[in-house]
């Protein structure tokens, strides 16, 4: 989607290996998020960032870490992948204090990374 690129789009990895997923944005938005989507659960927040080097945990953060060294990049790392982390991962961005008096833009999502852990 315009403005957000997730890489890779698909990945198959083995249990116990480290995996890093990348989210790159060209919108210069301050806030970035990582969600996972699983059947029966909808989308669940893993971690989010409210600025460079400023991150916090979401509702399902165990087993994941994140880093944001630049405004445009937000990395999600699985230190030692497990089969329960097989999922589709979505990155999202948002901004506050928009032009025209709006205070917050809705979250805008990338097209996802499908991760399979065997």
């Amino acid at each position, binding site marked *: *989607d315009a403005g*957000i690129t997730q890489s890779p789009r698909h990945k198959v990895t083995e249990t116990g290996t480290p995996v890093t997923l990348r989210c790159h944005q060209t919108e210069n938005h*301050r*806030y970035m*998020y990582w*969600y996972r989507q699983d059947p*029966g*659960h*909808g*989308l*669940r*927040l893993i971690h*989010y*960032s*409210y600025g460079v080097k400023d991150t*916090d945990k*979401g*509702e399902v953060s165990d087993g994941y870490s994140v880093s944001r060294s630049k405004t445009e990049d937000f990395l999600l790392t699985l230190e030692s992948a497990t089969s329960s982390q097989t999922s589709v991962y*979505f990155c*999202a961005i*948002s901004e*506050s204090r928009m032009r025209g008096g709006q205070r*917050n833009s*809705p*979250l*805008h*999502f*990338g*097209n*996802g990374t499908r991760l399979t852990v065997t």
Partner: protein
Amino acid sequence: DQQVKQNSPSLSVQEGRISILNCDYTNSMFDYFLWYKKYPAEGPTFLISISSIKDKNEDGRFTVFLNKSAKHLSLHIVPSQPGDSAVYFCAARRLIQGAQKLVFGQGTRLTINP
């Protein structure tokens, strides 16, 4: 605990008729409610939202209703079109340090039949 629930996994509607998708929530701290639409192999796209202080918001064919006493919201699509076939997620929002923490329902797959 599921704070946002969509109890209908699927819904089938004839083209031209009204589609009604439902969502229930448990937490009164949410300040905004949103609907997202998702096609296969794509990310969710924002459709419409409503503030917790409103009871109705309309945008073209899409209307969202909020009943705070019942902690229930619904999305009405009229008339339904084949391109509306997708998975619809409702989401509830809390603002934390300016970040929008969304809690999603499980999704409802809408199929519009010609």
